[in-house]
């Protein structure tokens, strides 16, 4: 049975009922699986994460955990579910109560859920610190959040999340506010939970590099303004993307290699880097360099281009191999010259779209 099922969820904010933040989104996470959700800021991925964690209720559709709709649970099963799914926030500076010591923050969940007795609470807390790679000393437990670095705070937040023994972790941009050199350690830590404790993870990020590292062996879901446009095994999607948006993301992401950077600059696709979704047809049609009339009228169906690899696009075959595949500096092949290709460079954006 699937651990998590998101079933045709559509979600709107009361403040802006006209445009849904999520539209008919469906996805599945299996036990112990590593799944990444990637997309630009404002695309709804954080909202989806919050719906999965039960922090908000979807306007329509269902979120099911172990087969049961989470909003239909009551009493003991509701409490059990509540501890089974934990969300770790993006901002390590806001996710810890500034007025409570680390020990208090970490201990609260353990004590109230009877996961540790008072007499061995201290030991348990030290063990928790050890598991997330922090210094396991009583002195550390007495510190306050403002005395810790961003990376340390994030580890504390992760410790808090795993202390209640969840089966699913939702990590919302947990590395975005950390130094680049710190990210790998946090990602390794989260990955280790899958192996050691059988915890599945839904990792949300805008950074394809981070996502590729995190969910290798798992799956990637690509989201564009409320719709899942591509999903499949990580390496497959990164090496052979079949949606123009995924292709754009791969071509646009900065890489730490100056030679490659220069070559890519010459062959980057003329796709718009910003702008909200189109209101009719395919949501991406207003920014897509391969778009045609059909794209603007009909919503594309989801097609399976290879086992486990699905794409919502009318013309997935048009997407060339990205220049980043296998780290080679290969040029991406001839660019499309259909009538819909915009002028090279930038498309006028719909400026002043609030995030």
């Amino acid at each position, binding site marked *: 049975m699937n651990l998590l099922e998101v079933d045709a969820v559509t979600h709107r904010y009361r403040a802006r009922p006209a445009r849904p933040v999520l539209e008919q989104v469906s996805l599945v996470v299996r036990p112990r699986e590593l799944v990444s959700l990637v997309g630009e800021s404002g695309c709804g991925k954080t909202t989806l994460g919050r719906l999965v964690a039960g922090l908000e209720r979807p306007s329509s559709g269902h979120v099911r955990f172990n087969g049961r709709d989470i909003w239909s649970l009551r009493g003991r099963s509701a*409490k059990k579910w509540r501890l089974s799914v934990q969300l770790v926030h993006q901002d390590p500076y806001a996710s810890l109560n*500034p007025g409570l010591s680390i020990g208090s923050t970490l201990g609260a969940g353990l004590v*109230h859920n009877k996961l540790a007795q008072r007499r061995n609470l201290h030991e348990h807390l030290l063990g928790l610190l050890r598991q997330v790679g922090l210094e396991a000393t009583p002195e550390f437990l007495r510190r306050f959040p403002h005395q810790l670095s961003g990376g340390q705070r994030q580890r504390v937040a992760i410790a*808090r999340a795993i202390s209640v023994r969840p089966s699913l972790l939702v990590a919302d941009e947990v590395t975005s506010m950390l130094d680049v050199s710190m990210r790998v350690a946090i990602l390794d830590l989260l990955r280790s939970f899958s192996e050691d404790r059988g915890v599945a993870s839904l990792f949300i990020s805008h950074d394809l590099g981070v996502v590729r590292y995190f969910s290798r062996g798992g799956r990637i879901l690509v989201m564009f303004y409320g719709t899942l446009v591509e999903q499949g095994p990580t390496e497959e999607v990164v090496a052979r993307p079949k949606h123009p948006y995924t292709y754009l993301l791969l071509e646009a992401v900065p890489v730490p290699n100056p030679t490659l950077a220069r070559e890519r600059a010459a062959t980057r696709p003329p796709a718009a880097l910003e702008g909200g979704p189109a209101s009719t047809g395919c949501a991406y049609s207003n920014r897509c360099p391969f778009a045609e009339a059909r794209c603007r009228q009909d919503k594309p169906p989801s097609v399976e281009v290879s086992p486990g690899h699905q794409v919502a696009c009318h013309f997935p075959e048009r997407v060339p191999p990205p220049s980043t595949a296998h780290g080679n500096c290969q040029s991406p092949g001839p660019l499309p010259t259909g009538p819909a290709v915009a002028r090279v460079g930038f498309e006028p954006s719909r400026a002043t779209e609030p995030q």
Partner: protein
Amino acid sequence: MRDRLYGLKMFCKDLWRLSKHDKGALAGGCVVVVYCLVAVIGPYVARVGGVANPADAYLPPSLSHPLGTGPLGQDVLAELVVGTRPIMEVGVLAAVMTVSVGVVVGLVSGYLGGFADSVLMRATDVALTVPGLALVIVIAGVVRTSSPVVLAAILSVTGWAGLARAVRSQALSLRSTEFVEAAKQQALPLRNIVGRQLLPNVGPYVAIHFLLDVTGAIYAEVALFLLGVAPMSGTNWGTMIYLAMGQGALFTTKSMLYLFSPMAAIVVLQVALVFFTRVLDAVFNPRLRAQ
């Protein structure tokens, strides 16, 4: 348990350290402590009552009467000292009641929202619109009591409303913070969320409000005594002024000391309390506490 004591010890240490930097706050704190001491031991040290001797009325200051005498020949200083306890008792009690009600109403209302919020806020609105002091005077006049607790309760009948409003807005902004969300995710009970997550974050505001409430309660209390609405038995600063007015103190300059002494006592206490609040803001902010 050890953690709580440790926390208290650190709190006092930080309070002391921060006070040292702020002379005004330190002075204020010392004065408040002196007043508290006087309130506690005063009645055992000074003696009032005894036979009234109008012949000794309004004597100038001397060794046996450092602040002179009152209209009935009693020692002003003794009266001042003895009169401290009733005033402060009621003042502190009233502030405790005001703050307790205000904080609970504010936190529950702000965090839970919905129906509870509407009901509590309507009650708060009423308490805010009714003229507080007038209501207090009327109630005091009707309920003639000599119990300090009841008097304190009367004094706080509308005072909690302003605090409730402010605490509610704090609770509203806090409930959507990420650490409160994290607490919810850990299935922490309501009392923990309100008590451990929300309360420490409204702490500074509440503490300062508490001290200012004490000053407000004292003023209101003295007003009651001055107007003769509160019980006239016993000696306190309010009755001193009341007596003085009644005994024609306004018509002679010799009574100046008698009239001004209780007033000065009140004013000095109020100022000290206000000065002391300066350091409270800093001590409640963990960022400023460590190193």
